[in-house]
């Protein structure tokens, strides 16, 4: 494609989808908004002190809950007083002068409604989950309790910096910060080799994405000359206003920016091909899985793309790529989730799959749908993870679907069972639940937006919705219904090296203990939140041309506004209005999925086992369940394609290094300074007179040298034929 054609297309697309949206202006007020960041920082420091001083009580938990709560209240206050997008300058972070150019990064906040939407659930859920963890982690009070809460606090610090920052460097700080916090918390049980391996895997896979983000950041700075959103957006709006020459001057790399950011987002949000770290990240304590690996951190990629949406439009293929990657990830995650038995892992694959939906939303031009799905998913997935945590807590780490049954009939497990039921309804997308509305916003838009084979993608997404309903209720029917039956796990709270002494309960190690106030309370609050998350969809819209209620408004006034669906031109599904059609189709698909799950896992569980046996028995179909149970062998493929060659290369280099470089070259070079040092050693003999003579000699030498300089220069000139 020629450059000119390319740019015309690009401009056309940008102009079509661009609503007018305000860019934040600097303000002198709202300095107190900085406390959203400062409070978790204080919390981190205090928890760190508790760890250093070996505080062996629940103090760190209360510090964290209190200060994160304060941060949440500050966010709410900011939301209440919000009128228009602003940037709030806190202090200058660094300022590098280099030969006339300057690289300035301020510590300042970019507050528009998109920021607020994210911050509300980041700080709100953070507080609730810290509260939940205060009970969940209690058996560790004498060990890593303070360390755990310091990690949670530093995560909130980093996530807030990521979301609130008004420039890409601050986003990058937060981006690396959440990666670090995630590494810290996945590896919380550092005596467990699998946890350490998972932590390393998460970190390393994320590095690949981070590289993309870093390169994108650099290119953005290089092209736009600034890293501040406001400055970038102003220039991008200029481009969409028709200054094509600008873009041509930009050259190839401006079109690389969206793809680089995309790689960053895929890494952090566990999309194909970088999703492999997320399921393993479940080695961390469950509150961490709920907070970081379901509700907040993994949505950072969605945030990045929504925030940088104007840049995503710089290449016509960028958004379709996002959509297709998202759709395929959704399908892949769902198929793997169908065949797992560890139900925390099922929620993990489900998270991968739901994140796929969100990316699809971004890609098919409904940032509203993506943001709304982020919002509802944060609630219902947190509920699901925390119920999984409650089961782990009570059944000594037991998570196997085949080993727990009839939970709803057990004493003290009613709240867990029914909050899980609510979460499952939302995830399955049953009509009337929050997940139903948010998912439909994305599905419908896939059929509306033109180009990129989005219709095919839409059907894939609908099939995925059916699979989702099936695996969701497979879990619920297996765990909560049926005959009462359980086997205790062989570990405790995901940690295998201690007994049951931390508890005041009267059950032995072979009896489950039901959750108490903190866990139940948080579950109820979150379940109510998950239900109420449907309400914003029905709120009236303040802005024109925008639908989708409150969340729609939140997106409309931000840089993600370019991705809002334009409802002047609707497409259709099978000749019907896409929204009404989708309400019906997805409801049907969901109910079918649930019905199958009911048939296989409640009404007659032997049918399911027979089905699996029959599939395995038939050589033609054997591959399907095997591949699904083994996660499509993605890890193995990566091992063969990436790790093994690297391992061989590494060992080859190691041998070369050891024998050629180290022994031969490096040792040789390293010997030179030491030889020189020995040469000069006699000068330092400790005798006063010789020092004085050396000093005087040095003075004489330098003086003579400088006085003779003109002659010396002439002499050298003569020697080298006047060249010098």
């Amino acid at each position, binding site marked *: 494609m020629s450059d000119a054609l390319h740019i015309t297309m690009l401009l056309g697309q940008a102009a079509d989808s661009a609503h007018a949206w305000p860019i934040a202006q600097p303000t002198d007020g709202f300095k107190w908004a900085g406390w959203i960041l400062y409070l978790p920082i204080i919390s981190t420091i205090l928890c760190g002190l508790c760890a250093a001083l070996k505080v062996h009580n629940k103090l760190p938990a209360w510090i964290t809950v209190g200060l994160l709560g304060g941060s949440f209240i500050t966010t709410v206050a900011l939301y209440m007083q919000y009128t228009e997008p602003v940037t709030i300058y806190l202090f*200058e972070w*660094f*300022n590098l*002068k*280099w*030969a006339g150019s300057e690289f300035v990064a301020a510590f300042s906040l970019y507050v528009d409604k998109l920021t607020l939407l994210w911050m509300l659930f980041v700080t709100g859920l953070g507080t609730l989950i810290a509260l939940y963890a205060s009970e969940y982690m209690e058996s560790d009070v004498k060990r890593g309790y303070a360390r755990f809460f310091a990690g949670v606090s530093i995560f909130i610090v980093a996530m807030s910096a990521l979301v609130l920052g008004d420039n890409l460097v601050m986003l990058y700080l937060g981006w690396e910060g959440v990666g670090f916090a995630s590494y810290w918390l996945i590896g919380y049980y550092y005596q467990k080799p699998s946890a350490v391996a998972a932590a390393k895997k998460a970190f390393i896979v994320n590095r690949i994405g981070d590289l993309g983000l870093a390169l994108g950041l650099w290119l953005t700075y290089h092209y736009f000359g600034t890293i501040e959103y406001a400055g970038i957006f102003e220039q991008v709006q200029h481009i969409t206003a028709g200054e094509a020459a600008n873009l041509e001057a930009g050259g190839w790399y401006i079109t690389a920016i969206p793809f680089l950011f995309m790689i960053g987002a895929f890494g952090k949000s566990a999309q194909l091909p970088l999703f492999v770290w997320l399921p393993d990240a479940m080695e961390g304590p469950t509150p961490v899985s709920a907070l970081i690996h379901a509700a907040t951190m993994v949505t950072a990629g969605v945030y990045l793309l929504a925030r940088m949406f104007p840049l995503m439009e710089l290449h016509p293929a960028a958004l379709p790529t996002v959509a297709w990657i998202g759709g395929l990830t959704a399908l892949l995650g769902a198929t793997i989730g169908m065949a797992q038995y560890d139900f925390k892992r099922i929620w993990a694959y489900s998270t991968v799959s739901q994140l796929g939906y969100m990316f699809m939303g971004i890609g098919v031009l409904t940032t509203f749908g993506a943001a709304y799905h982020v919002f509802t998913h944060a609630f219902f997935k947190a509920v699901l993870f925390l119920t999984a945590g409650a089961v782990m807590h009570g059944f000594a780490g037991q998570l196997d679907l085949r080993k727990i049954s009839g939970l709803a009939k057990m004493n003290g497990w009613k709240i867990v069972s029914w909050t899980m039921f609510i979460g499952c309804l939302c995830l399955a997308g049953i009509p009337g639940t929050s997940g139903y509305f948010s998912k439909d916003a994305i599905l419908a838009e896939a059929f509306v937006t033109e180009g990129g084979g989005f219709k095919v993608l839409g059907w894939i997404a609908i099939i995925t919705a059916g699979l989702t309903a099936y695996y969701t209720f497979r879990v619920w029917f297996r765990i909560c219904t049926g005959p009462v039956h359980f086997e205790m796990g062989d570990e405790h709270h995901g940690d295998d090296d201690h007994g049951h002494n931390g508890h005041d309960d009267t059950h032995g190690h072979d009896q489950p203990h039901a959750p108490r106030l903190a866990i139940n309370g948080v579950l109820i609050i979150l379940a109510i939140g998950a239900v109420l998350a449907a309400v914003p969809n029905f709120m009236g819209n303040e802005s024109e041309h925008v639908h989708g209620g409150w969340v729609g408004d939140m997106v409309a006034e931000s840089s993600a506004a370019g991705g809002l669906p334009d409802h002047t031109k609707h497409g259709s599904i099978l000749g019907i209005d896409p929204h009404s059609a989708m309400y019906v189709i997805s409801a049907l698909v969901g109910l079918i999925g649930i019905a199958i799950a009911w048939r296989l896992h409640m009404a007659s569980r032997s049918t399911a086992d027979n089905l699996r046996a029959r599939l395995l028995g038939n050589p033609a179909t054997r591959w399907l369940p095997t591949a699904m149970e083994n996660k499509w062998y993605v890890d193995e493929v990566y091992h063969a394609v990436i790790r093994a060659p690297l391992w061989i290369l590494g060992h080859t280099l190691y041998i070369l290094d050891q024998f050629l470089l180290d022994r031969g070259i490096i040792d040789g070079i*390293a010997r030179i*300074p*030491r030889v*020189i*040092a*020995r040469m*000069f*050693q006699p*000068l*330092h003999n*400790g005798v*006063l007179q010789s*020092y*004085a003579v*050396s*000093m*005087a*000699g*040095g*003075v004489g*030498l*330098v*003086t003579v*040298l*400088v*006085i003779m*300089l003109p002659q010396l220069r002439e002499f050298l000139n003569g020697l080298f034929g006047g060249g010098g």
Partner: protein
Amino acid sequence: MVEKLWFLIPEMIVFGGAVLVSVLGLSKRKVIRDALPIVAGGSLLAALIVTPMLYDAEHVAAANLLMGNLGLYVKVVVCGIGILLVMMNTGLIDRRLESAVAAGRAKFDPISATRGEFFAFLLLSLTGLMLCSNANDLIWLFLALELTSLPTYVMVAMSRGSKKAQEAAVKYFFLGALSAAIFLYGFALLYGASGTIVLTEMRDVFARQADFGDVSNLAIVGMILSILGISFKIAAAPMHFYAPDVYQGAAAAVAAFLAFVPKFAGLLALMLLLSTIGWENHYRFTEIGLPPALQITLWIIAVLTMTLGNVGALLQTSIKRILAYSSIAHSGYMLIGILAGPGLGMSAVLFYMLAYGLMNTAAFAVLAGLERSGREIETLDDLAGLRQRHPLMAGVMVVSALSLIGFPPLLGFWGKLYLFIAGIEAGHILLVVIAGLNSAISAWYYLGLVKMPMLEQPSARAETVVRGPSLWPRVAGLITAAAVIVVPLFTRNLLKASDAAVADEQVFVTPDTDDSQQLASRK
């Protein structure tokens, strides 16, 4: 004259403190004798608080100094680090005497007590350093430099009871005298070449000379001799030989003092002297700038200093000798900033001096705070496995060593970064490359200071390392190490302060402009 006295109030306070401690040190009451460090630190604190109040635009203009605002930054930094140095020296002097008195084995005898004198000398030396920043003529500069150095000779001798300390003091004294003779000779030649001792007037004379062709050779030779003589103060080649012996002979706390105070004084003297003759490409009212001869001299000294310092440290086993050579090497880095000249160069030197003062003090504080069989720890072996027995001190050592390498994001990294940027901007690419290579060599021995406490198992020798009797050196170590980590957050503000200290427009005011006539009439 009154205008100049106004800025000397901090010096007067510290001097008053010096007189006070020398008298109080003779008191028969132990409480008073133990309070000496508090008095000394208190006088420094008072000077620290007073200094910012003195420097307002009006007074600075009236004083008509070469770099009017230099004193503000210098005095604040000197008083701040001075307090830390006082903390490090607490409990060092008269230890045996005091413990004997406390045990009732001896009666207190004012004749043999030296603690009061020691702190008085310490404060006097700091006074001299602060005076350097106000110098406006050669005599003042010479006296200030010598006031900085003379007390340190005595402090070295007092710091330890051993003969080694006395040997070190004598060496230091004689070589110091030699160097003073050299730069005094240089000053005399400068006077001969310009006919004035006042720095501002000297600058005008040299500028006029430059307008008519070239600065006189007499002035160049005088300047070279001054630079070489002052090299002794900053421990730069070829006057650096004394450093390892003297540092090793002195107590660690005094060695930390030696590495900071005379070095700072020497660098200030270099800045002031070279300002009279100008820098290439930066000097606004002559086209010539720093004469090539001076550039070459400084270039050679810088390269020699950093290379000899780093290479010399490679084979050492004594930590004090390592730090002594490292002190030499760091002087070499700072000469890059001196070469780069006004603007970023000098401001980077001032910034680096603060960074060096903090990280170097931290390293010495570990030595001062720990001891083995009644003596300060000495060799690298003593540090082995320090992490297990004294985790905080091990941490301090690691932080300071990493910062000395220039490991981001610690303070030393930023210091080096700005020095190197200044060097590149001034066009001394080769010099910066050599400095970079030197940094790489230096990692060899600094990483030894990281490896020994953190990765090694404690040797039998290291097992016997215990805490020193006084808490304060270790507190100073913790404070400085924390500062090395925290201060980088305020890099920007510090750089602004050091910029303001050297980028005074007064440096560039030509004698003929209206401004200076106004100034003259105001007088």
